[in-house]
Structures are given as C-alpha cells and as structure tokens.
C-alpha cells in the first residue's frame, strides 16, 4: 500500500466544522442518495434475485453505507459519518423509500458503526485499513439492527447468513469503493479545501 501511506497522513487542524465541511458533507450525502436511486434503476434484476432468497439482500446493503464511510474519509471531523449517513437516508426517504421514518433510525445506527471505527483511530488515521474497517463496522451495525427491526422472525441461521453477507458488502462496497473514490477525488483537485485533498501525494 505504497500510495496509501501518502494518504495516511494528516487530519484537519481543528475539530470544529467549517461551513464548507457542512455543505460538502451534506452534498456528498445527497449525491450518494441520488446515486443509490440511480443504481437501483440499473439493477432491477437484483431485487428479484433477493426476493428468491432474502438474505442475499445483505450483499447489496453496502451501497446504503457509502455515505458514512466516504463522508468520514473526506470530512475527517467527529460526527461526519453519522451526519452523512442520516442525511443520505433522509434523501432516500424523499426519493421514495420503502421504510418511512425508520430509515432515519437506520441511518443513525449505520453511521455509528462507521463512526466508532474512525473514533477508535482517534480521527488520525485515514488509510485503506481504516476505510475497510469502517465499512465493516457500518455493515455489522446494519445487519444487527435489521435483524432486530425487520428480520426478527427469521431463524437464527438466516440471520447469521445475512450478517455475514452485510459484513462482506460493507467491507467491499462501502469500505473499498469509498477509499478508491476518496483517492480518485483527491487526484482531481476537488478536495483542495480539505485535509483529504491536501495531504494526498498526487
């Protein structure tokens, strides 16, 4: 991970949120909401597949978690993962989600899953490992809460299977994709107002 050590580096000097932090975090959440909506249109086959065997939905669930990990990686301020995930959930609700008010609660829980990982590294490390762990954290938080809130009546084996799928999906889709996106964004120069863009050796 030669390139990741370059991105490893610094955090913003202040933990206070600037206006640009707030607005960019908000728009990332909104964009992820729009993207997820667009993706669902592109892969309508998947919902049929998961209807056949519902735990498979866990494999797709990482898409819901991108806002938390990507927001955290770019903004690098306490609360960014939770804020982005909740707002992305609100946008999904606006665009016509199936879950009503509960998406907001899910957003908080999933955001906390990623946020805890960033906190564990004291908001100082932003490398690939941290990104994958944050994806895993969000995936596990999602699986546990979904198992309690919606899949409660499934038998234990299916809940476990769902958890494993969600964890994998969290690591790959939310963790890896977000990290790649962060690195790509840093190279385009759009992150020049952020530590994430300035510290990247590009």
């Amino acid at each position, binding site marked *: 991970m030669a390139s990741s050590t370059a991105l490893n580096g610094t955090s913003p000097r*202040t933990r206070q949120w600037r206006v640009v932090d707030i607005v960019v975090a908000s728009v990332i959440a909104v964009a992820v909401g729009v993207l997820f909506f667009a993706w669902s249109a592109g892969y309508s086959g998947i919902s049929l597949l998961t209807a056949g065997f519902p735990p498979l939905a866990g494999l797709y669930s990482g898409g819901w978690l991108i806002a938390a990990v990507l927001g955290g990686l770019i903004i690098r301020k306490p609360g960014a993962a939770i804020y982005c995930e909740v707002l992305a959930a609100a946008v999904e609700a606006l665009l016509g989600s199936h879950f009503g008010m509960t998406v907001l609660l899910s957003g908080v829980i999933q955001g906390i899953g990623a946020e805890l990982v960033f906190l564990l590294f004291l908001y100082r490390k932003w490398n690939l490992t941290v990104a994958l762990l944050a994806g895993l954290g969000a995936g596990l938080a999602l699986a546990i809460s979904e198992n309690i809130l919606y899949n409660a009546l499934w038998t234990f084996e299916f809940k476990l299977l769902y958890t494993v799928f969600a964890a994998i999906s969290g690591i790959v889709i939310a963790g890896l994709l977000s990290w790649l996106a962060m690195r*790509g964004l840093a190279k385009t120069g759009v992150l*020049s107002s952020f530590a994430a863009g300035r510290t990247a050796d590009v």
Partner: protein
Amino acid sequence: MTPAQASSPAAVHVRARGWGWRHGGRKAFAARGLDLDIRPGERVLLLGASGAGKSTVLSGLAGLLGTGDEGEQEGELLLDGAHPAEARGRAGLVLQDPETQVVLARVGDEVAFAAENLSVPREEIWRRVGRALDDVGLDLPLDHPTTALSGGQKQRLALASVLAMEPGLLLLDEPTANLDPEGILEVRDAVVRVLERTGATLVVVEHRVAVWADVVDRVVVLDAGGGVLADGPPGTVLAEGPTRDRLAAAGVWVPGWQPDVGGPLPAGGGEALLSASGLTVARTKRGPAAVEDLGIEVRAAGALSITGPNGAGKSTAALTLGALLRPRAGRLEASAALAGTADGNPFRWRSSELVQRIGTVFQEPEHQFLTATVGDELEFGPRRVSGAPDLRRVTDVAERLRLTHLLKANPFTLSGGEKRRLSVATMLATAPRILILDEPTFGQDAGTWAELVTLLRELIDDGVSVLSVTHDADFIAALGGATLHISGGAGRLVTR
C-alpha cells in the same frame, strides 16, 4: 458588527498594502504584492490574465480566506481599517455560477437569508427584502420558486440577497460569464441601478470588458507576477497602447478588439452527411417536445450554427442530431458517405461506430473525462475503435491542441482553457466527419476563443462538418455557414 438599522450604509474604503495569499498545500502565491487604495463609492473593474489572482483578491475582500491550514497571508488588506473577516456583511460577493448560489426554495426566503445571518430583526428583514427585489427589478411574488428562474434572474436574485446585508462594498466575480446576451444586460443594468441608489463601492472582475467599461470609473490590471500592472480611468488604460496590447495578449476581451482569425471561409458545400426530416426532439421520454418538425441537412466542409433563446431546445436538437438522444418522431438518416460500412440509421450504431462518425463536445468538459491522465484520455477513443490503434493521430492531435506537455496530468486539474482543448481533442482523436459543440465559447477568454475558432476553421477546411450550439455572434461570423434559429418549438434555417 453592522448597525442593522442603518438604511443607507456608508460606502467602504479598501486598502491593501503588500497583500498576498497562498492557498494551503500550494507552493506559489495566488496573489502577491498588492498595493491598492479604493475610495468609498469608486467603481473598479479588476482585470488580469487568468492566474493573476483576481478571484483571490475578491475572496480576500469578502473575508472568505480562512486561517490556519487553509492558507497563508502576507501584508494587510483592510475594509475601513478592519480585517474583512471581522467586517461581516460590509462586503457582499456575487459569484459566477447562477446554479450554485441559490440556497433556498423561495425567492423571498433567498433574499432574507443573508439578512438573517447578520441577525437583522424580523420586521427589518422583510423591509429589506422588498427593497432589494425592487432594486434589482425582480417583480415576483415572495413565494415564487427559485428553480423557475432564468440564469439572468438567478444572478439578479443573488445580487438582491447580497443587498439585503446592506453592504458598503459590492464584489462581483464574473457575474455574467455564464449568461446569454439578454441575461448579461439584465444583470449589468440591475447593478447600475443598485449603485445609483446605494452609492456603494464596486469591484467587478469580468473577461468581457465591454459590458462594464461604461459603468466603472477606474480599471485596475493585476500583473500575473504580482502587484498592479496598470491603474487608471477606463479611457486611459484601455486606450491604444502597450497596456491594451498586453491585456489582449493575456486573453482579456478589451472593447473594440477581436482576435484575428482570418477572413471569411469559402462557402461550404460538400457532400451531405446527415439529413433530418420531420424530426421532433425531446429531452426526456415523457417530457414535452422541445422542437417539432425539424428538417435539415448537415453537409461536409461547412459550419452550421444553432441559435435561439435559452431553453428553446437548441442543445436537445444538437444531441439528437448527434445520435445521442432518440427523436420523439421523424427520421435521421446518415448518407453512405458518413455511414460507410455501418447502418444508415445512426441510432443503430454501436458506440464505437458512433465515435468514428460523430463527435459531440459537451458544454462541461469534465462530464466527458473518463481516465486519470490526459494521455489515456486521448487514447481512449481510438482504443474503443480498434484493439491496435494508430496512435500517430493521437500524437498529432495532442500537438495541434498544445496538450503534449500535459500528457501525464490529471484531466480534472487542468485550467478551464486546457480542459476545453482536451475535450475537443478527445473527439478529434477518432477523426469523426461531424463535430458537434455545445456552447464552445461560453466563459472563455479571448486566447482560448481564438485558438478554438482557428482550429474549427482548419477542420472545416479539411472537410469536417462543424455544428455548434451558440449565442456568440462573433463565433458564428468567424465560422460562416448556415444558421438554424430555434424558438417557440420550431427551427428556421438562415443561410448567408
């Protein structure tokens, strides 16, 4: 703090001494060595080559340049003796892009927003909202949706919103660069009206000098190497002489001057490439049709310009002729000369067949960037067409568009002019017979403009058909050919 009750605030005095600013993470200073005094009520047009730091100066005056790891300041920049960040509300800034300046959904709320941020009492806010809308001539109900406004109206709304702070210094950063000719005048006239009432100090940055030359009483030209290159009344600074020449060379549109791109082209009249008949075009599958019953022939070695008011459906028509949007009705046919071995119906072409025949350059170059380096970007098209592409053409195109020194750079990090050149180059790499461009000269400085026009003229000379959507009369004149005027859902062909 601003005294909220002051109805006609005093105009601001600006003072800069050895001022400079370096963005965090950059080595070079964006602006440096600036010494400047602007008297209260003075109207200043700020010019300079791109990269001379004009926008940085405006950001500094608006108090938007942060501290700490955001950048480093040297010297001093003061508004009435105070640091701009401590004089919140004294300076009001209007930016270039109409779309990203609207914060709220309703016109009245949008104007109130700035006053709210300065903790103005509620009754006073609504009084200011009414007057600001009046000042900029926006006669709309307060609950009018902001999404329903035209570009010019949005910019006037942004101006009104800034006025609600009752600023003593008005800062305009290329406020009309993204507007059509009608919108430009709308905004300029609104600014003049506002200045007459408030007497505020004005600093405006704009490439198109003619728009503001009669409004301002002083022109300040920043030197790309730091400091001030020229300073004086417009008549003096812009008069024939070395300063004017240097400005023109730096790409500034000085009034009464136009880049020399050569005389009129011979009338085009090559073979027919594409013919449309009874074409009805629409942006979306279910939305309303933009233009109906369009009949037109696109010929080799000639130019076709599509003009008309904003929102008339010019881009939609161009995208349909480019075989990117399916028509609602009617036929688009490729001649044998264009289609070659492919189908006569362009909508049956695979995307690799399309790029060899029709190239479409979008208004936003970044929308078409696909890879991480300029070199990969140029080779992308040819590699789509063939597994072992002839890369000599790529080298030629890079050479011709002065991109050779940038081959390793990330496309997104290029300057505006370079991005525009790259987006044209990527299309030329696959040698299409038809090149379609959407607003190619929008917001470009004179240098990029001349380069682009010269290139397109050469292409026409080589037999390419150049079809452009544009508001730019000079551009149309330089390319010659036919004009398709679209308005009210119909197209009318004007041949010169």
